[in-house]
């Protein structure tokens, strides 16, 4: 039966191992698989180098020259600092050094890149009314790429509730905020709740926003404008 064992083992092995040469991108199947395995292993044992929050002190923030954002993905235990890399109208794109980015429309997430199941784009026209304008209900539309690389639309109906005069401890300091909750549900009973804490100048200084089923919710805090 050893022939069958060989059969089982070699069933999907590719035809070339890695090679050297002038073209930089030569890589065989085994390289691709090796790369996946090492990334998976790294992901699993992704022990953060201490909680990044410990590094955030008022002195450190004051010493920073550029605008700074802090992001945390509780689902995956990931934390990062982001700086702005682009502006288009009211939308600012913030990115980490290793190529993950999130685009915020006046603080509301409208797109992400480099995360699992990126939010490709979003229709936030009614969301702005709900978060900033006091409207009670609105529609939110997300687009994601499915496994066939086609765009899939998810529509949510969201209810908004506001509470002003809430004292909140943010990483950038203590302030009095208007707390807006956004309670969204779609036709498949997928439900999430977003939280926004808006300061006296009408800017979202802290928020918890749900991006996608795989990524889950993201905590975003503005450390420096």
């Amino acid at each position: 039966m050893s022939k069958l064992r060989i059969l089982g083992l070699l069933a999907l092995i590719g035809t070339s191992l890695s090679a050297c040469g002038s073209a930089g991108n030569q890589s065989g199947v085994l390289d691709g698989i090796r790369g996946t395995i090492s990334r998976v292993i790294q992901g699993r044992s992704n022990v953060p180098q201490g909680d990044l929050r410990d590094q955030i002190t008022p002195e450190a923030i004051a010493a920073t020259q550029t605008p700074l954002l802090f992001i945390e993905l509780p689902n995956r235990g990931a934390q990062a600092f982001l700086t702005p890399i682009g502006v288009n109208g009211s939308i600012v794109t913030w990115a980490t050094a290793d190529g993950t980015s999130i685009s915020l429309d006046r603080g509301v997430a409208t797109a992400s890149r480099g995360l699992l199941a990126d939010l490709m784009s979003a229709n936030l026209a009614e969301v702005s009314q709900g978060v900033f304008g006091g409207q009670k209900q609105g529609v939110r539309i997300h687009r994601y790429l499915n496994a066939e690389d086609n765009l899939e639309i998810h529509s949510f109906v969201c209810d908004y509730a506001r509470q002003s005069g809430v004292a909140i401890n943010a990483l950038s300091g203590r302030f009095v905020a208007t707390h807006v909750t956004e309670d969204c549900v779609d036709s498949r009973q997928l439900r999430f709740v977003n939280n926004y804490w808006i300061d006296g100048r009408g800017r979202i200084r802290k928020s918890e926003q749900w991006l996608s089923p795989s990524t889950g919710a993201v905590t975003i805090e503005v450390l420096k404008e």
Partner: protein
Amino acid sequence: MFSQFVKRCKVVTLAAFCLPTIAVAQGDLWERPTLSFMGMPGLFDMPTAHQMTDADLSLTFAGFETTGRATLRFQITDRLAGSFRYLYVDDFLGNGDYFDRSFDISYLIMDEGRYRPAVQVGLQDFGGTGIYAAEYIVATKTFGALRATGGIGWGRFGSQNGFSNPLGVVSDNFDQRPEAISGIDTTGQLDTSNWFRGDAAFFGGLEYAVNDRLRLALEYSSDAYEAEEDRIDFQVKSPVNVGLSYAFRNGTNIKAGWLYGTTAGVQLSYVLNAKEPRHPPLVRAGAPQPVAVRGRRSAQDLGWTQDSGLPDRASAAFGQAIAADGLTLDQMVLRANSVEVRYRNGGAMPQAQALGRMSRVLTNLMPASVEEFVFIAASENGLPGSRIVIQRSDVEELEFAPDGAWQIFARSRINDAGDSGLGFDLARGSTQKLTWGVGPYVQSSYFDPDSPVRFEGGVQASGRYEPTPGLVFSGLARHRVFGNRDDLPESNSVIQRVRSDNALYAQEGETALVNLTAAKYFRPGKDLYGRVTAGYLESMYGGLSGEVLWKPVDSRLALGAEVNFVKQRAFAQDFDFQDYEVVTGHVSAYYKANNDFHYQLDVGRYLAGDWGGTLTVDREFDNGIRIGAFATITDVPFEDFGEGSFDKGIRIDIPISAITGQRSNTRIARTIRPVLRDGGARVNVEGRLYESVRDLHQPDLQDQWGRFWR
């Protein structure tokens, strides 16, 4: 015998009455049927009536006593499925290991409904050597956590407690079944005259889902294993099989059972869905550059045109910026209001995503007056295919638009690049001039008549030189260090041995010049593409190959013609030739249908001088996975062709990136032929036009346009 029939009916109907007669909603409990030891939805050896999910590709390994089976099955549509099976039986013919290859097909006639069962009809091992040949009709009904199956089978499925064929009322022909195992030379033919003939028998079973992972199964098999009883002393002590199966989270399933009262058996299966190869979509790629929006007045500023060094600096910066994404800049022409970029996509990302990324980089690098981005998409051999024009204002406006991908597709213009009169300015442009590589290689082939796996490995050296776009010199040489490919048996072909001397090429070609060619790729005119290749085209043939292809940018149909003047190479795969020479050629039609299916028809003359045609049908998914089958019929009589009767096979092409989510241009590509003989053989020349040109054109671009903004 009638009493047996009644007993069988009782078992099935008892189950039906013991439980609620209205099927409870199944939910996730029965999301997919389990696969049998034959690799089809079923219990142990008997099938059940449900199909797998559309686009499921499954691989099953099963073994018991002296038998081993490997089956590859593809759910072609919701209702239709096909399998390829490789069988191993120890000493079946009395002369050592016995390997057999066969095909199955099954069709779902009726879906399971509230009151009616699912009903399926199938052919097992049709057109093979026929040792597993069987036909069946089977019905399955679900009652909550229990599934009951009952069916009637012919051929091997009519051997246990068989009774005379009920179809005998239609015609007396159905009463007798001709000898199943005919000579080796008639294998491969569709023995349509055998189907549903001879004695029939009932089979059935029960399956109980303990939870969504564990299932228990009980089966009454109508396969009496008569041939195995005669030849290898396999004893069927009881027609009842019993066992269980367990499903893991990643698509793997293991099944174990006590078979025929005589032996234990184990089966392992893996299911991959070609539409959703990874759960959930796990894509990791660096974020693209954000779009740089111009200031209001700056578009009028043309002062930069006085800077004569700017175009070169911009070109160098752009080339560097896109190289990280695997894109190569061939040439950039910068004008006051537009920029023309001629590029090649290395394959690590779809064309649409490449266009999006390049557009973003251009908004950051180009002076504000440059409003129009003109992209010339070229194939890997330098053939310009499409001319895609995108307005910079659209890029700025639609970066975050909710429906931005579709909108920018609607606003961009895609035309043929062949007649735009663009010259390639050698002074300004550059191509990937010389690339070379030295490294190890492993080459494997599967399921040939005598061995499940043949492989070889060693060292290879390759080189490619492209002095001007479209003129390519390339070569590949290999030295084998280990392998078992020279164990192939000698050819017994009665027609010209154009391919079946595999063994001699493998034995004598320890150090082999695999190919060494000079090729020219060019555009004779609008919608036309041309290729001329000369040299040692492949390991067995050398000569001259010419091809022309007509394919408009927005067309789903393409037509081509190819002519080859070739001479057979020496077995040592050095610079010598043998005496045999032949002119081969084909006229081809390619059609990409609106659903996932792709068709190709080639008609012409093959290497052995035979005339005929090949039909290839593929199912292509937008993520790049392709699964298909082909068959060639020529004027070589089936008896002269030999084992297998005519050339046929299946092919699978899976990009690694579709499974792992990591960016990669490597693919797992396999063509599996039950036999490789001399009829219907074509020259394997590299660089055939259709494959390299099609993904530059609109139909393929459109499929993946959702990736533009990625």
